[in-house]
Every structure is written in C-alpha cells, then in structure tokens.
C-alpha cells in the first residue's frame, strides 16, 4: 500500500468554537482502498474533524487535498459533489419513502427536465447498486419497514450512488446487533476491495482491531498518533486516548469513608432493572458504569421515587425506606441530577432564579408567600459558589451554555443540602472547563461527607472521579472495583461480558 498515492490529505486543520479549541493542527492522510479507524474519547474532536471533511463545518485554518488536488469543501452539497459522504449516527432517511426514493432523494431521474420522476429508471438504477453491494431487500420497500442495520446500508448505497470516493461512518454499530454488525463489516470490506476509502469512527476496540487497516487516535483536539492497526494493541490505544493528564483533570482528594448512607438489596423495576445490591458510604464517590440500557438510570429513578420499586429493599442511614415519590426521596435527603437536562432538569423558558431556587420556595416563604429578598441573596451566593455565568437572575435558563445550565440544576440540589446526591451523566454535552468545575465540586461535596453516586458512560470520567466503581450489565450489578483495581479493560469486560483482547492482538 505504501507505494500508492494518498486519496485524501488533511493538512494542519484547525477549528475552534467559542471557548473550545475543538481541532488543533491535525494532519492526517488516507489511501484509496483502506479502512482508517478514528478513535478517541467523547469530545476528542473526531466528529468535528469529520464534519469539516463532509462540509458541515468550515475549518479555521488548514488545507484538504483529494487525489492530490486542493479542494474547498464549503458545504455538505460540495462534499457530495467531490465524492465525500458521511453517514451520521442519526440516520438521515425519510421513513415514509421507499429505498429507491431515498437513494435518489434530490437527484431523481426525470423523463425530461422539469417533468415527472421516471420511477422505472430510478428503481432499476437503485437495484443495480443494491446488487453491487450484495443487499437483498427490495428497492420498493419502505424505510420504516427496514431494520436499523438495513437503513444504514441504504445510506451506504446512497453514498455509492453518488460515486463517493470517501465514506465516513460515525459509530455505525452503536445501534446494531452483533450479526447486523457482521454484515455491515462485510459490506465495508467489499467497498475497500472496490477502492473506496472508509473512515470509521468507533469506541469499540474489538471492531477497530478486527476491521481497520490503520488507526488514528485523537485526544483534546489533537492527533496523538497514527499506525498500522496490527502494530498496536488495546492497551497502547487506550493509553493514547486517555493520555497522562488524567490525574490533573480529575482532582481527586483523598476522602475518609464515613458511615453507611444507603443500602440497596436486590432492587428491581420494570424490564431494565433486574437485580442490584450495593452500599454507599458517606464521603465517597461511587461511579456506576455500564452500557446504555443496562439499568443504570433506572437505579437512579427508583432510588429517587420517580419509578416504582418492584421488590428489593432500600435503607437510608440504616432505616428501611419506602420511596414512592420524588418528594419522599427529597425528604430523606436524596437528590437527583437527571440525565436529560432539557426535558427533566430545567424549565427552559423560565428564569435562572426560578430554576435554581424552586427547591427552596417552601423554605424561603412566609404564609405561603415567597421571600424574594432571601431567595436572591441565596442565589447570589450559589452563582458565586458554582461560578454560574449568567447576565442576571432574570435571564432565561435556556439561553445559557450547557455547562451553566447543569450548574443551575446542581445549585437547586445543593440548596437542599442532600445527604445522597445521584448524578446521571453530569457532564454530558458540556465544555471542558465546566466539566473540571463539576468534578471539583463533587470532590468537595464528598469531602464534606455527602455520598455521591455518579452514572457515566465515559470511562475516563468514571476512573478519574470514583472511589469505587460498580458495573451494570443487562439489568444486573455485575462487578465492583476499588479505585486501585479498576481499569478500562476490566470495566468494559464486566459491562459487555466479553474479553476485549480476544482476537484483537496479532
């Protein structure tokens, strides 16, 4: 392969967003007929880089060469014309239309210019592409009748129909079963044979090692390394992804584990939570890891009384607790920062004041009327303590940045001084500096004796913040690690039930 010329060259690409340097001086090349994997943590800059390549963003600086020619990719449409297609995590197909209609959407073959769509040509042409790719569903099938995997293949067929030279796949297997993934990989390999360049973003190490020819790793917006996949192993890749700054980013104070704050025995609820037994101690941060859908959020919701406990015992500070509503949970000193900030955490259209102080209304009132002076005084303290950046107390909370929105939600809970605080994906979608502030805050709160349960999908965060780590799989609590024992490999093994390195190293 080394004697071939590059299909694609990215040179010194830089892109910044307000407050974040998302991609910093990245230079990366890809050959025709190869699968290049792109790995890195959430927020490492992979998606931004690929969005620049597919025309969704424009780079602040740098140059892109396609088959040796410099190109300016000013829009997704331009990218298509150049033969660059990106298949997003959220598929962009119209469910009520057929496979053929979707493949030719916006480029329908007509009888003559300005007249009706020539359905026959469209279907024959679509069929030819499906045959080329070895796909066996009908061109007249509705997208809504296809599985997620098949829909992804329609997206690929669409990419092929516009004669794409470069196809970018952003975590294509996150919603697929193992068998469906296998089929997708077969298709990717055959495209590689046909000389297409595939860039493949994934978190799944086994797939990366199984599939890719070369692997590029990004961290904090920079390219950390590129190498032939067979020269790498899981550990070296994880080390590249996480880097050595882990300790500085996660300020971990040594804390004294206190008395038991919460005991849970055989908790069960709905179809997602089957069996969980664990204990939380005062002054410690416990990380709850597991794949999406493994029952982590359900634990939080049951403990908080948002979902019903269908068996199993909850003890708060030693006493059996029957928690039927969030109000009862709050009375017992339990707080919950929800996963979905916009739908469950905030009154988006209302002021910062209403959002942060709603939990205090009953306490800061007399004869049922609010004491605005005291509320505003408390608000000013909270804004200072949490470093919430807002123009004033009347500002609409929906207009704040994600990080500041999250701090408003946290402020609401701190107002009640809970004994147990559950945070579900507390740093999702927020900027790096707010993340660090939230980690700091969690550490401070634990040091003051609060018991903290943090649910997170980001392993570096789990490893960096937690004193102890619990791992869920398919509704059951499968493993518990101390801070010293825990590694990404061990957690992923417990979460997926598979050995990560199996077949990965060669």
């Amino acid at each position, binding site marked *: 392969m080394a004697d071939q010329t590059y299909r694609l060259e990215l040179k010194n690409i830089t892109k910044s967003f307000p407050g974040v340097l998302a991609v910093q001086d990245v230079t990366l090349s890809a050959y025709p007929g190869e699968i290049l994997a792109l790995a890195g943590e959430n927020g490492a800059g992979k998606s931004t880089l690929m969005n620049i390549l597919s025309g969704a963003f424009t780079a602040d600086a740098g140059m892109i060469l396609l088959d040796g020619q410099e190109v300016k990719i000013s829009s997704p449409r331009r990218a298509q014309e150049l033969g660059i297609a990106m298949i997003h995590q959220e598929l962009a197909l119209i469910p009520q239309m057929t496979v053929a209609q979707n493949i030719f959407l916006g480029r329908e073959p007509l009888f003559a210019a300005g007249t009706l769509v020539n359905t026959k040509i469209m279907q024959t042409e679509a069929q030819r592409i499906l045959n080329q790719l070895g796909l066996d569903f009908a061109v007249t099938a509705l997208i809504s009748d296809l599985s997620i995997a098949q829909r992804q293949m329609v997206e690929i067929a669409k990419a092929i129909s516009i004669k794409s030279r470069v196809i970018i796949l952003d975590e294509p297997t996150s919603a697929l079963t193992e068998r469906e993934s296998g089929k997708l990989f077969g298709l990717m390999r055959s495209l590689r044979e046909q000389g297409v360049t595939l860039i493949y973003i994934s978190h799944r190490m086994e797939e990366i090692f199984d599939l890719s020819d070369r692997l590029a790793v990004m961290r904090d917006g920079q390219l950390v390394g590129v190498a032939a996949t067979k020269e790498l192993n899981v550990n070296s890749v994880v080390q590249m992804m996480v880097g050595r700054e882990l300790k500085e980013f996660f300020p971990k104070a040594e804390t004294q584990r206190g008395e038991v704050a919460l005991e849970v025995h055989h908790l069960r609820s709905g179809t997602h939570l089957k069996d969980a037994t664990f204990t939380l101690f005062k002054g410690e941060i416990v990380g709850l890891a597991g794949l999406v859908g493994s029952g982590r959020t359900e634990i939080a919701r049951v403990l908080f009384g948002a979902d019903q406990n269908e068996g199993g015992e909850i003890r708060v500070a030693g006493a059996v607790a029957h928690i039927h509503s969030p109000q009862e949970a709050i009375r017992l000193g339990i707080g919950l920062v*929800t996963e979905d900030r916009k*739908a469950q955490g*905030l009154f988006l*259209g*209302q002021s910062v004041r209403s959002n942060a102080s709603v939990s205090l209304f009953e306490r800061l009132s007399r004869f049922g*009327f609010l004491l605005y002076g005291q509320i505003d005084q408390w608000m000013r303290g909270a804004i200072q303590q949490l470093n919430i950046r807002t123009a004033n107390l009347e500002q609409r909370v929906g207009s704040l940045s994600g990080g500041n929105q999250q701090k408003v939600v946290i402020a609401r809970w701190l107002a009640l001084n809970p004994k147990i605080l559950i945070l579900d994906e507390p740093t999702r979608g927020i900027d790096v500096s707010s993340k660090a502030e939230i980690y700091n805050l969690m550490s401070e709160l634990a040091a003051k004796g609060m018991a903290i349960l943090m649910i997170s999908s980001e392993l570096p965060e789990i490893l960096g913040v937690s004193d102890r780590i619990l791992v869920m799989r398919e509704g059951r609590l499968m493993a518990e690690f101390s801070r010293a024992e825990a590694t990404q490999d061990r957690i992923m093994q417990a979460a997926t039930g598979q050995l990560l390195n199996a077949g990965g190293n060669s």
Partner: protein
Amino acid sequence: MNQKFLPRFLSLVRANSGLIILLLVALPLSILSADFLTGNNLLTVALQTSMVAIAAIGMTFTLITGGVDLSIGSVAALTGALAAGLATRNGLGTYPAIFVALFAAALIGALNGAMIAWGRIPPFVATLASMAAVRGLTLVYTQGRPISGLDEQFTFWATDVAGVPVPLFVLLLVAFIAYLILHRSVFGNYIFAIGGGEETARLAGISPAKIKFGVYIISALAAGLTGLLLTARLWSAQPNSGTGLELDAIASSVLGGASLLGGAGSVTGAVIGAFIIGILANGLNLLEVPSYNQQVIKGLVFIVAVILDYVLKRRSKSG
C-alpha cells in the same frame, strides 16, 4: 446602535403587547365615534368587562399549567341560579346563599381538578364533559326559567358607588388577590413550574396533581363570582347566562400573553385582554356594526393576536 434598536424595540413590544393592542383598538374608535371617549360610555365598558375579566383571571391559572377550563360558563350560570334560588325560594338570606353557591362552584372545580390531576383525563375532555353536565344541572334546578325577585343586598353588587360600578371594585380586589397568589406565592410559582415542564417539576419535588387540583378550584371560584355579578346585574338568574364565557376568557388570557402551551401568563395580562375584547365590542356597537358581523370581527382579532404573539415569541427565541 441601529443593530440593537430592533431587538430592543421588539422586546419592549413583546413585554407590553397587550397594552399596545389595547391602544390600537381604542385609538381608531375614539376618532371614529364621538361617544366612545365619554365617561358614561367608559363606565359601561368597565361594568361589562369586569365580569369577563374575573373569569379570565381564573382561566389564566389553568392555561399556565398547560390546561384549560371549558366549564366556566356553565359554572357561572349554576352559581348565579343557586344563589338566586336559595335566597328567594328557600329564604336563606342573600349572603348565606351566595356563600353556599360559591361553595358549590368550588366543589365543581374540585371535581374537574380531581379528574384532571388524579384521573389523568385531558383538561379539554374533562371540562368539556362538566360544561355539559353543569349546564344540565342549571336547567334542572331552574326548570329552564329565570329566577327573579332578588333583594337589594343582591342587586347592590351591580350598582354604582361614587359613580363607579361595583363590579369594577370586585375585579380590582380579585386581581390583587390573584396577583399575590400567582406571582408572589409558592403555589403560584409552582403553577408556572408545572407549566414550564411537568416532569422537571415532579423531579424537583413538586406534586403536579395538587397544584392542578387547586388551579381548577380557583378557576371555578372566579367563574362563580362572574355568575353572581351577572345575576345581580340582570336582577335575575338566567339559565342560559354565561354561554360562551369560556371563549371570551380564553381569548382575554391569550391576548394578555398567556400561552396555550402553558408556562406563561399573568393577571394583568388577563385583565388587559378582557378590556381589549370589551372595548372592541363596545366600539362596534357604537359604530352600529350588526352583532353577527361583530362575531366575525372578534374571531379575526383573536387570530391576529395569537399570530402576532407567536411571531414575537419566535423572534425572541432565535434572537
């Protein structure tokens, strides 16, 4: 400077959209009709509008939670009929009769609230059903005939004191109390909270059911007051009074800035909205527009106001 002018102007317009519409309606009328800007005429408008405004204040409470109360017209009629009947037929005395009638209104509100809060029946459906049932009760109770023979204690409430209609005083008192509840109390702030996001409110430890229950009682009480004032003004309880009151009340609330999606609305807005409708109706009468045509114009004004509100809100969100 110039770039900032438009958004500032728009936010000023948005904050006072009710007042601006009020002026837009009143200005041409004061030019077109010589009778419009006379003290006498304005007092008539105030008398007629006060009653709708009280009902609109109650309606605003339900709209802010994201609900609606369609039963208020029927509740107004039943309250008036009960008070008149108990006072004249049963010799209960005017004030005890009024008290019992308002209690009955609150009870209907509580039933509405219970269906919506705990029965989880959509407010539109629950109050549509009670609108029919309560109107039926009124017809049964009155035998379909007006109840007259009210004493002076009763009719006093629609007379003038120092030249000002008593209902206007009642409106001011109701508005003041409603303002304290809605904008100053814990309960009122929770009303906005569940309208802004019911699940968020529940997870913040608020019980949406209790708040909704209370809101429909308030709405029914306001409607009951309106019914009593209507009865006093007509010197009799009419079995069909209050028909269409819910439309006027919803229109008033929305003209005054309440959102049909919940989360927004105010007491002053509801009052201003009611006066927009009242002045418009009065002006059209003065200009001798036939009453059928007036209906059409009222509907159009309502639609324009809603569109205007929607456009202004969208502008502020994107800007």
